[in-house]
């Protein structure tokens, strides 16, 4: 799905827990997520902290979308 969005000419970022899969399928802008059952946030923390983590991940994803890349790039 990531690739079809990319192919359509729309910049796309993949926030994915299992980065090797994302690399294998061919996403170009990748942001590693937190955990498989909670990619964006950490429910073991209070919601305020968890949301803060989510916000940081999304901000990193937006930064990735605004960064020129010429090969697959993982934004750690």
């Amino acid at each position, binding site marked *: *799905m*990531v690739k079809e969005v990319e192919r359509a000419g729309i910049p796309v970022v993949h926030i994915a827990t299992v980065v090797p899969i994302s690399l*294998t399928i*061919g996403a170009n802008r990748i942001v590693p997520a937190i955990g498989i059952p909670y990619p964006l946030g950490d429910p073991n923390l209070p919601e305020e902290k968890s949301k803060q983590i989510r916000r940081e991940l999304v901000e990193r994803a937006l930064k990735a979308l605004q960064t020129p890349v010429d090969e697959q790039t993982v934004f750690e």
Partner: protein
Amino acid sequence: MAKYKIVHYINNFFAGAGGEEAAGMKPELHEGAMGPGLALKAAFGDDYEIVATVVCGDNYFGEKTDAAKAELLEMIKKYDPQLFIAGPAFNAGRYGVACGTMCKAVEAELGIPVLTGMYEENPGVDMFKKDLIIVKTKNSAAGMKDAVPHIKTIGEKMVKGEEILGPSIEGYIERGIRVNYFHEKRGSERGVDLLVKKCRGEAVETEYPMPKFDRVPPNPPVADMSKVKVAMITSGGIVPQGNPDHIESSSATKYGVYSIEGMDRMDKKDFMTIHGGYDRAFVTENPNLVVPLDVMRDLEREGVIGELANYFITTTGTGTSTGNAKGFGEDFVKKLKEDGVGAVVLTST
């Protein structure tokens, strides 16, 4: 004992009728073997007989496929054969498609085993490899000699109902089928063996080759995020409560587009997860962990992003074939483009 009867399909060129100038020829019937059929006849020996050869021009077949198919089937049916062989087509594209089409038609209509052969880059391979046994050949008729023994062995096994072994053993093109069998060594032992070989730098052959993935070059970055409409997509299986479109919890065959208009966050009263590949407890409590609507709304309000699309697109990633996922993508990008979406955040668990 009566001989097993084979009907053989070839094109204008292999029938000696001519090349492109004869590609428009209509179906013809010839008694006995001819052209490449002579080599097959010799290989199959006395227990088999090529009772007829049916011929059709590649262009005629391509342009009037239904008519050609029907005429050829009538011709083949009369002989009541036990085996149908088409080609081999080597790297001839139209011929390969004709061979594949005829094999499928004969199998469906007559219920007999069918067999063809092609070079791996023949477009007929991608079209038919999942449905047919296609003997792997070289890219030209010079490969006939190598192909014949495989056609013979597989053909005989088909007629007698014997087990056809894996593609690398029998010399046909992989169909993507996995067959269960008992190996003398258990999986853990074989796994360790492979690892040790790899550590030693020896050649290793995987038991399960990964599918090949194509690559798409990255798009230029978004120039000004504050002017762009962003859409959220997920493979994390978030759907409205009750899963109205019955998206599967694994091996999905469909995706959904659901409204988030007027919502400030993904409320657990409205949304649930049906994903069968992770522990759903956390996301059930808080779907924003997969579809970050709460944060996106904040960013929209703050003007960091221009606008958030008023829907999200979703499916289940686990077990879903890359073919299906690609199909979903090809389909929903039309909507994204129509709606003027300029950037996508796609989340996966």
